[in-house]
C-alpha cells in the first residue's frame, strides 16, 4: 500500500534520531576518508621517499663488512637494493608497466626473506605498521597482504600501459572495495540496526492511530522493512556520491574488470586467485542486502515479541560485533564450526576476498556459504514473523 509506505518513509526521514544516525555516518565517512585508508596507497607500496631512503641504507649496508653474516646477507641486500632502484627508476620515468613488474619482484623478495624485526634473523621485514598495530599474527597478516597485492598486480603487469591509480588501488571502484573491507559495511549495518530498532515501538507514541489502521500486521512489517531498505539505499547512494566526488576527479573511475584477490583453500593447499572487481562488488552487495534484511527482521521480531527495542539492539550488537568474542580466545581455530557461525559473516567484503578464509584457516567461508548461513537465519526469522503476525489477535502495537 503506497500511502502507508510513503507515510512510513516520511516518518523515518523526519525522525531526528534517524537523521542524526545518517549525519554521523556521513561525517565519519568523510573523516575516515581524509585520514585513513582507502584514500592512501597500500602500505606494501612504499613511496618514492621511503624507497630512496631504504635503497640508500641498503647500498651502505652492502658496502660495509658484516663479519660472518656478510656472505649471507650482502648478496640478498644487493639484490633488494637493485629491485628498489628499478622501482624508483620506473617511477621517475613514468614507466608504469616496468614499475609494476619491479614491484611484483620486490614483493616476492620480501616473501622469501622477510622476518619479524624483533627476531633479527633477517634484515628484511614486512611494513612495520603490521608490528606496531599490536596484531596477534603480524607476520601472517603481512604475508597475506603481500600475496593479495601481488595477485592484483599480476594482471596489470600484462597490460601495455597500466594506470597508476589502479596500481595504487585508488580508483573509485577500488576505493569502494577497500572502504568496504575497512569498515564501511559494518557502519552501514550499524545504521540498519539503528533505523530498524524502534520501527514498531515508536508507534506506541501514536497508538490510537496505529491500532485503528486497516492494515494487517504482516503487511505493516513488510512495508516497514521496505521503508528501511529504501532509506538505506538512499543513504548508500549519498555516501557513494560523496566518495565519487572525493575520488573520481583525482584517481578516476577505474575498471570493473580490475583484479582483486581471492584467498581460498583446498584441503591443506592454500592459494590466491584473481577475481574481477565488478563480480566482487556485486557479491558484496548481495551479501550486504541479505544482512540488512536479517537485521531489520530480527529487530522487528524482537519488538513484536518483547515490545521494546533494547532486546533487538543487544542481539544485533552481539551478532555484528560478537565475532571477536570467540575469535580472540582461539575458539575459532579449535572449533571448526565457527566457520558457520553467523557472526563470522558480518563483513561481506572479507568473505568475498577470502580474508575470512585466511583468518579461520579454512576454505569454507565462501560467498555461497554466506548466503546459506545468513539465508538460513532469515528463513527462520521469516517463519517466526509469519507465525507471530498471523496469530488471530496479532497487533504491531500493544
Amino acid at each position, binding site marked *: 500500500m503506497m500511502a502507508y509506505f510513503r507515510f512510513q518513509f*516520511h516518518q523515518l526521514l523526519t525522525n531526528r534520531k534517524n537523521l542524526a544516525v545518517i549525519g554521523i555516518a556521513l561525517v565519519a565517512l568523510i573523516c575516515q576518508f581524509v585520514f585513513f585508508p582507502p584514500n592512501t596507497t597500500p602500505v606494501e607500496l612504499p613511496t618514492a621517499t621511503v624507497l630512496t631512503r631504504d635503497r640508500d641504507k641498503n647500498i651502505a649496508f652492502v658496502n660495509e663488512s658484516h663479519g660472518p653474516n656478510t656472505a649471507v646477507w650482502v648478496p640478498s641486500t644487493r639484490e633488494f637494493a637493485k629491485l628498489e632502484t628499478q622501482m624508483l627508476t620506473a617511477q621517475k620515468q613514468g614507466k608504469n608497466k616496468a614499475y609494476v613488474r619491479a614491484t611484483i619482484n620486490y614483493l616476492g623478495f620480501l616473501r622469501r626473506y622477510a622476518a619479524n624485526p624483533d627476531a633479527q634473523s633477517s634484515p628484511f621485514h614486512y611494513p612495520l605498521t603490521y608490528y606496531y598495530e599490536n596484531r596477534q599474527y603480524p607476520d601472517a597478516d603481512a604475508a597475506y597482504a603481500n600475496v593479495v597485492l601481488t595477485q592484483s598486480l599480476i594482471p596489470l603487469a600484462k597490460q601495455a600501459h597500466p594506470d597508476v591509480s589502479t596500481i595504487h588501488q585508488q580508483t573509485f571502484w577500488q576505493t569502494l572495495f577497500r572502504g568496504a573491507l575497512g569498515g564501511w559495511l559494518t557502519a552501514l549495518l550499524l545504521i540498519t540496526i539503528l533505523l530498524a530498532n524502534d520501527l514498531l515501538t515508536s508507534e506506541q507514541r*501514536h497508538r*490510537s492511530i496505529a491500532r485503528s489502521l*486497516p*492494515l494487517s*500486521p504482516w503487511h505493516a512489517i513488510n512495508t516497514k522493512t521496505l521503508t528501511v531498505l529504501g532509506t538505506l539505499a538512499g543513504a548508500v547512494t549519498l555516501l557513494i556520491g560523496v566518495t565519487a566526488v572525493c575520488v573520481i576527479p583525482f584517481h578516476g573511475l577505474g575498471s570493473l574488470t580490475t583484479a582483486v584477490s581471492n584467498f581460498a583453500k583446498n584441503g591443506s593447499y592454500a592459494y590466491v586467485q584473481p577475481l574481477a572487481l565488478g563480480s566482487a562488488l556485486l557479491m558484496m552487495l548481495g551479501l550486504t542486502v541479505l544482512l540488512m534484511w536479517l537485521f531489520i527482521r530480527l529487530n522487528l521480531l524482537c519488538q513484536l515479541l518483547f515490545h521494546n527495542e533494547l532486546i533487538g539492539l543487544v542481539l544485533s550488537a552481539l551478532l555484528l560485533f560478537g565475532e571477536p568474542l570467540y575469535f580472540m580466545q582461539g575458539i575459532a581455530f579449535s572449533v571448526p564450526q565457527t566457520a558457520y557461525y553467523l557472526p563470522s559473516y558480518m563483513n561481506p567484503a572479507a568473505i568475498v576476498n577470502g580474508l575470512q578464509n585466511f583468518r579461520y584457516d579454512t576454505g569454507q567461508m565462501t560467498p555461497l556459504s554466506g548466503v546459506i548461513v545468513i539465508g538460513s537465519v532469515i528463513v527462520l526469522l521469516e517463519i517466526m514473523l509469519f507465525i507471530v503476525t498471523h496469530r488471530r489477535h496479532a497487533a504491531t502495537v500493544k
Partner: protein
Amino acid sequence: MELQLQNLALSFKNKPNVIHDISLTMNGGSIVGIVAPNGTGKTTLLRLILNDLKPQAGKVLVDGKSYGSQKQSLALHRQMCLFPVQDDLYPDLSGKSHLEYYAKLWHNRSKSVKQIINVLDMRDYINQPVRTYSMGMKQRLCFGMVMAANTPIMLLDEFMNGLDTINVARMSRILRGLRAEGKLIITVSHLLNNLQGYADLIYFMRDGKIIKTIDQHEQQPLYIQVAEENASRLPRMPWEHYPNGMLVLPIQKLPGEHFNQLLLGLAAHHIPFKLGPLDLDTYFNEFYETDQ
C-alpha cells in the same frame, strides 16, 4: 450498515465487569451517544467495537460479520475509524499530511481533503506542522481525519473536548450531515446538552451495563421542573428531589384537571418552572450522583 453488540462482557484483573452483558443494535444513518462518568467503560466499549480489546464473552457483528480471522478483522476495520487521541498525532507532519494519510489508507475517493479542510475551517494552519497547533486546532484535525477516512462507522471518543462554542456548533452541524449520508456515528461526549441536540439514541452506562436508553425519536415523558427554593410555595404533590437541585413532577401521574390547576397556580404565584422532558444533565445527576 448494522452494528450489533451481542452479550459483550469484559473484566480486567483489578476491575471486574467493566462491560457486563451489553447487547445493542445500531444502524447506519444514526448518531448514538454513550453517556457515563469517567472510567466506567465507555472508551472500553469503543475499543471492543474496534477489536482493540477482545471480549471475554459475546461478539461484535457488522452487517452480520464478526471478527475472526485476520482477513475478516481487516474487512471490518475498513468499515470503521476511531477518533485519534490528540497526543498521538505526528508532531513533525502537517495537518494536511494526516488528512491525506487517512483518506488514502481507507481509500476515500468521495470526500476530498480540500473539502474537509474548508468545512472545518482549517485553511490557515493546515500546512503547518502539528506541533504548532493549539488543543482546539488538534481536535478539529482529529475530527477531520475521521471525516477523511469516510468510513460507514465512526467512533468518536470525547471529540468535542477543548473546542469553543463556535466549533462545537460547527461539529454538531457536520455530524448531522454525516448522519444524512448514512453513517453510523457512535460518540462519547461530556457535553450532554449538546449531545441531546443531535443524537438519535442515547445510552447511559453504569457498572458495565446499559441502564437507560433514550430514543429521541420517541415521545419523551414530560415533567414540571421547579427549583428547590420554591418548595414551600408548592402544592402538596408527589414532587421528586433531583440531585441537581430541582423538584420534578412527572405529568403523567397527574389527572388532567390537576395539571391545569398546577400550571395556573405556578403562573399566578410567579414561580418559575420548566415543562418538558428531562435533560441529559438531570438524568446524569440522577444516575451517578451517588457514585461521586
